[in-house]
């Protein structure tokens, strides 16, 4: 599988702040690549560098096997993007917006094709409506149509579900999956929600303070073998004491509450053992260790170690 995006040691310094710090990653052909991180993690800055909106301070970006710095126009003819919110010309109609950006992308598109594109995002009946009268969801869908109108091989979406209602989020997710599965597009999508990336991406990266914390296949990173099981009992202190002397001692995590890092499949065995140890269980909660790690990034300050699966 060939690399569509290859980023090598990319950095961006804004006066006193290093927004992106020595970042390297690869997006392969056909990937839905999740770009995950909290606000300020460096996702948007990286995406803007990929789209030549921002000049990197250091590093190299190679897209479709060509250096972005030297083959910008050639590369961008094959890229479609929605950056944060899809701001369009509010005083123009949906059709005019689509037509303008299609022409700017260098493609000659017929009226039929433009209407087909609007139909795909459910806006054919509002083709002549001015964008200023559109809801956020409609603007977002039109933004996607603008990104796709020149049939790009690579689609970059920066937080495309921001400001959408649950139905809008579901529609967007389905559209992205369709683009990937039915049309074979390579997609890079950023989000600050792991749950969102988990549902659509096959590979992902987590950024924190401009640095890569983890990168890999979603299926492997979210493997149930690395689940965090949290127990609530009638007497946590006594239960912890008993667990520390059992075969579960290695899985037991530090802290006041009872947490075990283990394979989710072995939870029934754990409960059975606890009953045997005369521990009364009130509740059992399961979450993935990566999810816990990701959540901890929001609260931690200072140095954070990369995630070890």
């Amino acid at each position: 599988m060939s690399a569509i995006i290859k980023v090598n040691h990319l950095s961006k310094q804004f006066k006193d702040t290093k927004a992106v710090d020595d970042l390297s990653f690869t997006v392969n052909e056909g990937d839905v690549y999740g770009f995950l991180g909290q606000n300020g993690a460096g996702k948007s800055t990286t995406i803007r560098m990929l789209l030549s909106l921002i000049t990197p301070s250091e590093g190299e970006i190679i897209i479709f096997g060509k250096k972005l710095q030297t083959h910008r126009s050639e590369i961008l003819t094959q890229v479609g993007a929605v950056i944060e919110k899809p701001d369009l010309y509010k005083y123009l109609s949906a059709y005019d917006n689509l037509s303008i950006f299609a022409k700017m992308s260098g493609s000659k598109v017929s009226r039929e094709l433009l209407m087909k594109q609007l139909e795909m995002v459910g806006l054919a009946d509002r083709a002549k409506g001015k964008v200023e009268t559109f809801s956020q969801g409609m603007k977002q869908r039109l933004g996607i149509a603008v990104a796709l109108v020149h049939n790009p091989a690579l689609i970059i979406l920066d937080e495309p579900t921001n400001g959408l209602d649950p139905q809008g989020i579901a529609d967007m997710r389905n559209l992205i999956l369709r683009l990937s599965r039915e049309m074979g597009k390579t997609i890079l999508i950023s989000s600050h929600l792991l749950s969102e990336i988990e549902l659509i991406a096959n590979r992902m990266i987590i950024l924190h303070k401009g640095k890569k914390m983890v990168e890999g296949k979603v299926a492997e990173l979210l493997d149930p073998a690395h689940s965090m099981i949290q127990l609530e009992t009638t007497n946590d202190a006594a239960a912890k004491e008993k667990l520390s002397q059992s075969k579960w001692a290695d899985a037991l995590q530090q802290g006041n509450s009872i947490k075990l890092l283990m394979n989710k499949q072995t939870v029934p065995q754990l409960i059975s053992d606890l009953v045997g140890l005369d521990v009364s269980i009130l509740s059992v909660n399961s979450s993935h260790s990566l999810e816990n790690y990701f959540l901890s990034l929001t609260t931690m300050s200072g140095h954070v170690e990369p995630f070890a699966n």
Partner: protein
Amino acid sequence: MWNLLQIELFKISKRPRTYIAFAAIAAIVFIFQFAFKADGQSYMNLMLQSVKDSFEFERTKAINGYFMCYIILNTLLVQLPILVALIAADSISGEANMGTLRLLITKPISRTQLILVKFAAATIFTILLLVWMAIISLFFSLLIFGADDMLIFRSKGDESQILLISQDDVMWRYLAAFAYATVALTVIAALSLFLSIFADNSIGPIIATVCIVLVCTIISNINVPIIDKNVRPFLFTSYLVGWKGFFYIATTEDGVPIKGSVENWAAIRNSLSILLLHIGVLLGASVFIFRKKDILS
């Protein structure tokens, strides 16, 4: 490039603010024409008061279409920079404000192309504005007031001078004057475009353009030798009214106007060169800075 320019002109044509400038010009010109039609003779009597004994001219013919156009241009060309700034200052900052700038930059067009297209669109808007002005101030005035020989009142140092241009020698002067005004106002467009690179909304660059024009105009009009020699020659505002040079007809030693002549071609050429230099420098600086700018809006 032509494709991009068409898109740019389409966008400008769809914005209501574009038509404010055309409406403003029409309103001012029609007020002038109405006022002169109603009571132009009082104005003419006042202007000719000092020369009534030495200058023979049928006063009723003095207010004609050519004369009216000159009066209108004299007043309006000072205000036009504001109207040009309304569109040109919005070129980049307006896109940044709407959020469309980042979408434009992700398209396969270079930043240099984008600046050049924005500049070309602003220049075309300026030309259209002047064509509109020519239609209503010259052709409408000719329709309303008729054509005749044209009187020019000129201040030359401490003296006042009255020039008379034959009516068959006027039209080319207007064409030249409008062409000159296009170059002069294109400097304003280039200045507004340059300022719009630094802002995320168009109000700032519009105000900044107007302030710069105002300050430079005041400096251009300060009659102090040190400014006269060292500052004034380099300010574009010193040359904005250079179009008048086409109406300063050369005369024989006896004071008879020489048909088809201009008193000082060299001054006009010099003014045009300096204005073109300003356009080149401002446009070059715009391209240079915009190419390096990080788009964070």
